[in-house]
Structures are given as C-alpha cells and as structure tokens.
C-alpha cells in the first residue's frame, strides 16, 4: 500500500506534450515485427495482464460466474494459459466474483465513485468505495470528475482522489482519467500527474464507454508521466489502458510502448494491466492459430 506523495500541487511544472512527436513515436513503435516465439511469449504475457471486464446494465450473477471461470482458465483444456490478472465488475457483483474466484490468484476489481460519469456527491462516492472493499474488492477503479478538472479545479479533483484512496484501505486504487473527454495530450499529462500525486496506484485511460479510448499516443503520454514521476519520487505507478484494445496486434504494440518507455520492471501484471472484454478471445485465437497453423473462428471461443 502506498500513500500520497507530498509535492506542491503545481501543475504548471508538468511539461507540455509535443503532439506531433508523441504521435510519431507511438506510430514508429507499432512497426516492430513480432513473430513466432516472441509473439507467443507476448500473447501469454498479455493474457496474464488482462482485467477481464463486464460493465453493462444487463450484467447478472450468471454472466459474472462464467467470466470468472474464463478468468481462472481462459483456454479450456490448456491449464498453462492464464489465469488472467483480475476481473472487473460493478460493486453489486463483487461478492459473486469473489466467491467464484475463491482459491485462485485472480483479483477482483470493482468500479466505484459513480462510474462512468462520476457525477455523484463525494460522500456517496466514499460510501460506494467502502462497500465495494467490504464486499471483497481487491482493487477499486475510480473515475475522476472530468468537469471539475476541465474547469481548472485541480484541487477538488486531487482531494477527491486522496479521500477515495483513504476509503480504499488495503485495496489498490486505479484512477480512470477518461482521456476521451480530456481533449488534449496536455490535459492527459496533467491529469496523470495529479492522480499519481493524490495517491493512485494505477492510472487508467478510460471507462470504455467513450471513444476514443486507449489510443497508443495517449498511452505513451501517460507512460511518460509515470516515468517522470518515478524519477522524481522513486514510486512505481502502474498503467492500465482500457477501451478500444481489441486485437493481439494492438496489445503487443502496447507492450512495446511499455518496454521502451518504462523498461522490463513494468512488464508484469503488478504494474501493467489491459482492460478488455473482446481482446481475450483474439489473444486466445492467435495462440491456437500459432499452435495449429489454422486460422480460428469466434464460434469456438466463449463469448464472455
């Protein structure tokens, strides 16, 4: 467990982002050709980093239980694949997930603080967080108040994160910036810094409800913020791209970005996660394709 770092809350110290440069670098790092054994290793690593997610109004106990079975053993018949890092659900389903995952290493993450908009009173946000943790959540994915952030009320956002962090107790806190609503890379960079300073254990791109979400340039901007924060404070903050990562190729690209920006220390489920629902099947299909030589069909992989 980590605590907030006491630096002056002065976002004018945060450097500006060169948009052209960051887009070019992210695109250049996508060109790397990863094949055969390196690809297999990358796929297995990516599977171990997945936060298997369902955040729909129609979620049921049955769906969450099925997802938890998939989290324990993503590829039926091959226990060497997986398990994934965590499952991510709404607070009401934390208990179901916790029971379904008993005895496994898979952690339970819960969204909280009025996900996805975050526009509910602070005391409700804190109560929701406490209840999710009490129900057994190991990790809390909170959303920031984007309206306040864009209005320049950085102190309010900072305090909110710090108080949610305190309400988490032993649970890890992931702070969702919802980059699709922050409009510029400068905002993303500042919001990343703000969240890390307020006590985030992870920073996360998006809720998955807004497009664009985890685009490679946005991920790179956040990774660079994590790197600078590490140099300044010695604390390792985790990163979680979520939303819009659907293919193996995209996932491997993100792993390249992490390796090139933060190094091998971050290539672990402790410091890097992939929030995904459809990505898992593509990773599994690629894994089976490499083993059998035949292109695979979604018809033969479970939907959730």
């Amino acid at each position, binding site marked *: 467990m980590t605590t907030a770092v006491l630096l002056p809350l002065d976002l004018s110290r945060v450097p500006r982002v060169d948009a052209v440069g960051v887009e070019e670098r992210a695109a250049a790092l996508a060109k790397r050709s990863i094949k055969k054994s390196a690809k297999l290793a990358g796929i297995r690593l990516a599977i171990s980093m997945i936060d298997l997610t369902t955040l729909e109004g129609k979620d049921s106990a049955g769906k969450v239980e099925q997802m938890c079975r998939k989290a324990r053993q993503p590829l039926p018949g091959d226990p060497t694949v997986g398990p994934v890092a965590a499952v991510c659900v709404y607070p009401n389903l934390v208990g179901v997930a916790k029971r379904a995952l008993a005895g496994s290493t898979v952690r339970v993450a819960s969204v909280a603080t009025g996900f996805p908009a975050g526009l509910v009173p602070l005391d409700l946000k804190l109560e929701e967080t406490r209840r999710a943790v009490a129900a057994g959540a190991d990790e809390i994915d909170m959303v920031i108040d984007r309206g306040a952030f864009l209005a320049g009320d950085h102190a309010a956002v900072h305090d909110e994160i710090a108080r949610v962090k305190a309400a988490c107790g032993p649970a890890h806190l992931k702070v969702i910036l919802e980059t699709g609503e922050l409009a510029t890379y400068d905002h993303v960079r500042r919001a990343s810094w703000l969240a890390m300073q307020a006590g985030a254990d992870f920073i996360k791109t998006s809720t998955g409800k807004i497009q664009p979400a985890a685009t490679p340039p946005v991920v790179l901007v956040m990774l660079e913020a994590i790197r600078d924060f590490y140099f300044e404070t010695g604390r390792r903050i985790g990163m979680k791209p979520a939303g819009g990562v659907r293919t193996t190729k995209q996932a491997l690209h993100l792993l390249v970005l992490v390796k090139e920006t933060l190094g091998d220390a971050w290539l672990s489920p402790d410091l890097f996660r992939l929030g995904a629902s459809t990505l898992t099947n593509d990773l599994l299909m690629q894994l089976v394709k490499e083993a059998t*030589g*035949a*292109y*695979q*069909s*979604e*018809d*033969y992989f479970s939907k959730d």
Partner: protein
Amino acid sequence: MAGGQAHSAARPETMTTLEIRKTYKMYVGGAFVRSESGRSEAALDRRGQHLANVCRGSRKDVRDAVLQARAAQGKWAGASGYLRGQILYRMAEMLEGRSEPMAALLRRTSGATPARARREVRTAIDRIVHYAGWADKYPALLSSVNPVASAYFDFSLPEPTGVVGVVVPEAPGLLGLVSDVLPVIVSGNTAVVLVSERDPLPALEWAEVLATSDLPGGVVNLLSGHREELVPHLARHMDVNALSLAGLSPELDRMARQDAAVNVKRTPRIAATDATAPAAQGLHRIRAFVEIKTTWHPVGW
C-alpha cells in the same frame, strides 16, 4: 483492352498519347487491393504473350478476405430476398454495359472467336438474371410444413451456411466463375473466391462490375494466386463454413476435403457439368449452400 491498337495508333505523325495500362488488383471487402505479400506475376495469353501483371495472393490475403466476408455476412443474409434479387439484377445490368470490353478480354485471354466470346458474356448475364430471379423464390421451394404426430406446428426453412470458400473452374474464365459464385451468394452467404489460376483476368475485370452494382463490400471477395498455396489455408480456416470446389487436381481436391473436416465444413460434390449446359444452373445449386432449420412450435396449449 485496346492495348494492341493503342501501340499501332501511336505513330509519329499523330498526337502522341501514352497507353494507360490497367493494373489488375484483387477485390476484397469492396476495395481493390494488392497482395499483402507484395508479390505479383505475369498473366499470359494462350500464346504465352504477356497481357498484364496480377497479384499473387498469400495466406494472409486469405485471412483478410475471410474477415471481410464474415463481417459482411450478417447484413447480407438479413437483407430481404427481394433486395438481394434487385442487387443481383443490377449486377447483370452492369455486366451488360461492359459486355464489349469483357468479350474483347475473353478473346485475348482464351483465344476464343469473337462470336464465342460474346456468347460467353451473354450466357453469364443470363445466369446472373437467373439467380436474381431465384432470390425471393427459393425459400418457398425449400421450405416445408412437416406433418408430425403431436401437438406441434412443425416447419422447416432454409438459412445461409455462412462464409463459403469458392474455388472456381479454371475455364471458362467468366462463365465458370459466375456459375459457381452466384448460387452461393443468392441465399445470403458471402464468398471468398479463388479465381482461375491460369486465366485470372476475366474474374478481376468482373470485380469492376461488382464494385458498381450495389453489392455490399465483402459479399464477394476475389483472390488471385496459386491454388496449391492458398487452398489448404482456406480449407483449414475455422471461420469458413463450406467449400465449393472445382478445377482442382484429384490430389488437392482430396486434401482440401480432408482439411475441411476440421470444423465439419460442407463440401458438396457439385457435378462437374459444362458451364454452358442448362444443368449448370438451378435450384439444386442454391440448395447445396443452405442449412435447413426446423422449428417445433407448440400448439393447443
């Protein structure tokens, strides 16, 4: 198509014009694409003269084409039979409008006489119209209300099989292709087509008809290349639901059917009839690529 004449027309005393040679590309997902592999090879006429360069498709082109076919399948199958018929009819209209250049191309690639080339185009247009007519009628003939000895209303309906890999005959270049692709797509299947290896140009020319005929992108995908290289990937692909095989060596045909068993693809044995014969078209060709779904609906409860 007037390449030969263009050369002779470029005499010094006339105004010099550069001949614009056509690049024949493959047709995937409604777009004209080069092979992912970057490979190309020469298409020759019957006398071995160079006609044009064509793409030599690769394993990954098969992969991309199946993705496009799969993406297009739901919407195409969901369109009404009437609409599919209208679109196929428009395909015939578009081929009619291009019948002269198509006949000229067939003469150059296969060495057919002008009359024979025109007849092939004519028959191909008729065949498209034939299947356009079937689009909203075949369900009535393939459906049934089944007598059962219990309190159920029991009926059967045809549904498209899904994504179909179509390996067309080596010849005739246009008519063989049309005869095998149309009965597959009329019922709502989408097709990944390996065009004639020996004579690919008519098929790639036909792609321009498809592109202007309201046919949604991805319903017909045309790949050129070597069958020995591409057929195994198509046959083993788990997201392909059926194969229509023609023009393969007995050995390759046997291997394809064996590979197809991996996900129990349908591999109907379509009698190798002369594409110009009346038996080359009809309801039996449509029936080969539909699944009959039977519903037991309780009554009197």
